[in-house]
């Protein structure tokens, strides 16, 4: 009977199965390619594209130029190279998206696991989640930025201060969906036999959660995290768009768009490039989230 075993293909690993399903999703593959290109543009781009330092006179002459070979995306009202600025801005935009998402996911998972696992905490934590969902977020974010921008800037400097403040503000106001998803999963998981077995041999709640529950909520959390990146990037650009985001010498795509608005009628490309970059990033991240959801769902993956 040993030789029949050779005929059976080796069992697919979980990762391979997920990847195989993910590759079938055309939109997700498109999103992955576009997002990779954008990350390459933002991370490797500044190493390859170093605009020469202009003297003051030259900078004065090269104000408000259209796209050319020397300045592929033109220059802004101060004679700065738009392409280099787009790369620098993209780095900040993407970093804000990822870091804010991580804060939100960490908070959401924490609250969700506590609420799902400990019955005593469930009621109060879910009321808290509901309250956060009812808060008017954009006005509150604007108020938070206005209130704490100067105070934090004094401690950490304007760039780091703005980054920490905005990332933290977005993270603290967008963990609720992750918390609800995680709580639902945990409620179902904790009734399973293996959790019961683990508890019956005297494992502490901490060990049960870290070893048996958390690894099993990774899939839904990953989908929520992907969509969270898109949301965080949009929220940041909304703040920048309303003039309450990053300082002008430390721009994000949203900030570049906001600066371009003034010159929109004469130089529309200054609005279009950053806007396209934001939209493409969010679109590709959303498609990746869609594909991940399908790929991580065993009911769909089986077919």
């Amino acid at each position, binding site marked *: 009977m040993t030789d029949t075993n050779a005929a059976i293909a080796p069992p697919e690993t979980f990762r391979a199965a997920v990847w195989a399903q993910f590759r079938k999703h055309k*939109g997700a593959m498109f999103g992955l390619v576009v997002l990779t290109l954008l990350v390459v543009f933002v991370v490797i781009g500044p190493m390859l594209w170093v605009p020469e330092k202009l003297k003051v006179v030259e900078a004065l002459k090269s104000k408000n130029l259209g796209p050319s070979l020397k300045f592929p995306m033109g220059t802004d009202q101060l004679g700065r190279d738009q392409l280099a600025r787009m790369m620098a801005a993209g780095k900040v935009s993407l970093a804000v998206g990822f870091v804010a998402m991580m804060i939100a996911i960490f908070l959401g998972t924490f609250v969700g696991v506590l609420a799902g696992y400990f019955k005593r905490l469930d009621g109060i934590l879910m*009321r808290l989640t*509901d*309250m956060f*969902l*009812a*808060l*008017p*977020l*954009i*006005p*509150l974010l*604007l*108020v*938070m930025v*206005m*209130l704490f921008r*100067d105070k934090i800037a004094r401690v950490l400097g304007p760039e780091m201060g703005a980054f920490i403040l905005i990332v933290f503000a977005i993270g603290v106001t967008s963990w609720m969906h992750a918390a609800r998803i995680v709580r639902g999963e945990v409620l179902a998981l904790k009734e399973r036999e293996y959790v019961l077995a683990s508890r019956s041999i005297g494992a502490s709640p901490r060990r049960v959660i870290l070893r048996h529950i958390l690894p099993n909520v990774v899939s839904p959390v990953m989908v929520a995290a992907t969509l969270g990146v*898109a949301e965080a990037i*949009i929220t940041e*650009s*909304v703040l920048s*768009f*309303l*003039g*309450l985001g990053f300082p002008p010498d430390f721009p994000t795509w949203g900030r570049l*768009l906001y600066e371009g*608005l003034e010159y*929109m*009628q004469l130089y*529309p490309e200054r*609005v*279009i490039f950053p*806007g*396209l970059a*934001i*939209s493409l990033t*969010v*679109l590709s991240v*959303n*498609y990746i989230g*869609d594909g991940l959801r399908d790929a991580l769902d065993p009911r769909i993956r089986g077919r």
Partner: protein
Amino acid sequence: MLNYTLRRLLLAIPTLLLISLVIFFLVDLAPGSPASEIPLTVPAEVRMKILEALGVNEPVHVRYLLWLKQFFWVEPLNGFDAIFGTHYADGMQRIISYQSRAPVFGIIGDRIPQTLIVIGSAYFLGVVIALPIGIYSAYRQYSIFDQLGTMFAMIGFSVPTFFTGTLFIIIFAVGLGWFPTKYDTTLDVTDWESFLKQLRQMAMPVMVLGLANAASISRYMRSSMLENMGQDYVRTARAKGMSERTVVLKHVLRNSLIPVVTVIALGIPSIFGGAIITENLFGVNGIGSALIQAIHGNDLPMVQTLAFIFAILIVTFNLVADLLYGMLDPRIRYD
């Protein structure tokens, strides 16, 4: 049902109180105070009197309670007086804006029509576009139309309204010159001419917000239709020999609309949040732009009041959505 409604209404009170607490104390931390706006040449005792009259040198919990009283008692009384010509609220201190020294609710009252006209028609347009798209893409699942619809929805989710808005301005206002770039709030609709002008200036903001809303609502409509299409009662209706039109537009559509109606209700408050951007971009003088102006001008009572109004809208429409669901769907019983 009545029991459930009452319980939910009672539960909404502590939620709203907690939210008002968060909003009031968060905004109250703001660095600017009305004291800094009084010129230094004003003598100290007069300055004290001014601050006293504004009520800003009281401790913060007293101001919070006063604000709550003004919000829930004085302002409604004032509204009552204004409608019926009575004088119950005479002599009571109203919530005063730091910027304009006028009652906050007066300013909001002036501005809310602009918001309602633009935002209301945008939401209406969004629903009107979304429903047929959702119905048809579910009916012809995986057809070209369905795939186009999916792509349209994905793009609608992803492209932020401030970018669609600027693109529209560049294309339709700057390039083609069809619409004005800025919304003229002073325009009075008196005759056909000014009505057309009003339509033209509303076109772009309404399109931008409408398309963004249509994207998500059409998806809900589609998935809800798909869920119902495979049900037994649909097969029964077809087996009885009913026309395809009756089956889809009567049997399936009516049942599929139940969750969609609640989604539409839930979306109404978030519209006001989205309106902040659109109003700012197109210069619509509504409550969204009032909020931004108040934030930039350190006008704390205005910010507190507006943010709390947004919160009340969210809580109210959550409640409305839940109750609607219970009323429309006989399978759901709350008691």
